[in-house]
């Protein structure tokens, strides 16, 4: 029986893991890989202590710090947790493939994944023009026309990444011009480029294509529809929490975020704690995820003293 099982591989999970190991708490950590959502960022400038660091370099540092604890924590990297069950005695079963691991507490740091458009053509053309990572895939769209769906900072940054390669970049935003949310520098770069055309107050409704993407249909909030000819559609419309593994027995909000007590990171279920983007945290930042995960671990430690 473990005392703590941590789910996740991003900054939150690593923070909980390092603290658990140093407190000599009997812990296992399960992650498909170590790094978190910022792995795709080529320059993180607000990770405290580093003027600028790439996502992969930060991932490496997190990995090294965690692996340095491996005498005091069981690391299961490359293993995906399928489900967690709550048992009648208040402990938990963590199912990983054919293996079952028992634990007194669980700390969920499983983060979020890209929200999808959920429109026809999106699944069919994923990898064939529909993409979720401009930093990764922008070079494939050299001299082509592309669309970015999403008027938040991720969408705007995707536009800037694509401007370096594409012939033309369309930005489809749900709100009006004042609704674009992003860093002033990024906004200015986009507005001054004649490669970029913004379609405001519109939603993407269908991805068109043959073998690869050939176009995107959109609909204005007033009802008018239009089609643009593009070879790439980048989806940057926010993220969805990976809370399915505990959603059966832990309270979540309307967006499926795990609801937490922000003083202790406790969830509605005794023995289950959570931190980072999987929770209903107001601010989604690496530095905050780390702090919250440490709170979660310290709270779990207190819980273990009494249970």
């Amino acid at each position, binding site marked *: 029986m473990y005392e703590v099982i941590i789910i996740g591989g991003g900054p939150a999970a690593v923070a909980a893991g390092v603290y658990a190991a140093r407190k000599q708490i009997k812990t296992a950590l399960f992650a498909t890989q170590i790094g978190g959502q910022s792995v795709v960022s080529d320059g993180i400038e607000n990770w405290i202590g580093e003027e600028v660091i790439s996502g992969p370099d930060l991932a490496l540092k997190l990995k090294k710090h965690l692996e340095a604890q491996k005498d005091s924590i069981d690391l299961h990297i490359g293993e995906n947790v399928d489900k967690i069950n709550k048992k009648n005695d208040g402990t938990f079963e963590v199912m990983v493939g054919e293996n079952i691991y028992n634990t007194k507490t669980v700390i969920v740091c499983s983060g979020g994944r890209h929200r999808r458009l959920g429109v026809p053509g999106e699944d069919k053309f994923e990898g064939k023009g529909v993409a979720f990572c401009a930093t990764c895939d*922008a070079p494939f769209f050299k001299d082509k026309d592309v669309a970015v769906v999403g008027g938040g900072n991720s969408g705007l940054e995707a536009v800037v990444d694509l401007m370096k390669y594409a012939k033309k970049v369309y930005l489809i935003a749900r709100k009006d011009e004042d609704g674009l949310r992003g860093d002033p520098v990024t906004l200015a770069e986009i507005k001054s480029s004649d490669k970029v055309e913004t379609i405001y107050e519109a939603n993407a409704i269908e991805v068109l294509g043959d073998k690869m993407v050939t176009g995107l249909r959109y609909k204005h909030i007033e009802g008018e529809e239009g089609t643009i000819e593009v070879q790439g559609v980048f989806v940057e419309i926010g993220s969805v929490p990976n809370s399915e593994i505990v959603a059966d027995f832990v309270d979540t909000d309307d967006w499926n975020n795990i609801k937490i007590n922000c003083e202790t990171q406790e969830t509605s279920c005794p023995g289950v704690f959570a931190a980072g983007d999987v929770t209903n945290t107001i601010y989604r930042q690496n530095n905050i995820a780390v702090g919250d995960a440490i709170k979660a671990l310290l709270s779990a430690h207190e819980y273990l003293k009494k249970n």
Partner: protein
Amino acid sequence: MAKVTIYSTPTCGYCTMAKDFLQEKGVEYEEIDVSVDQQKAQAMVEKTGQMGVPVIIIEKDGQEEVLVGFDQVQLTNLLGL
């Protein structure tokens, strides 16, 4: 001995992670930067039917496995690490 080829772009985070992982495990690989080599980019798209990096090709015992994306579990299994 498996021959490993990785198609990547310089700004691709998962490509870097895949390369870091292979280096850590002492696996030699050939890297093809598809952001500068348009012909190789086209070949990669035709071979995999998609435009996403990394693409990792493992040639072993006359067989070829094509992996799209960095999947540490699959890589570990296929390379016997």
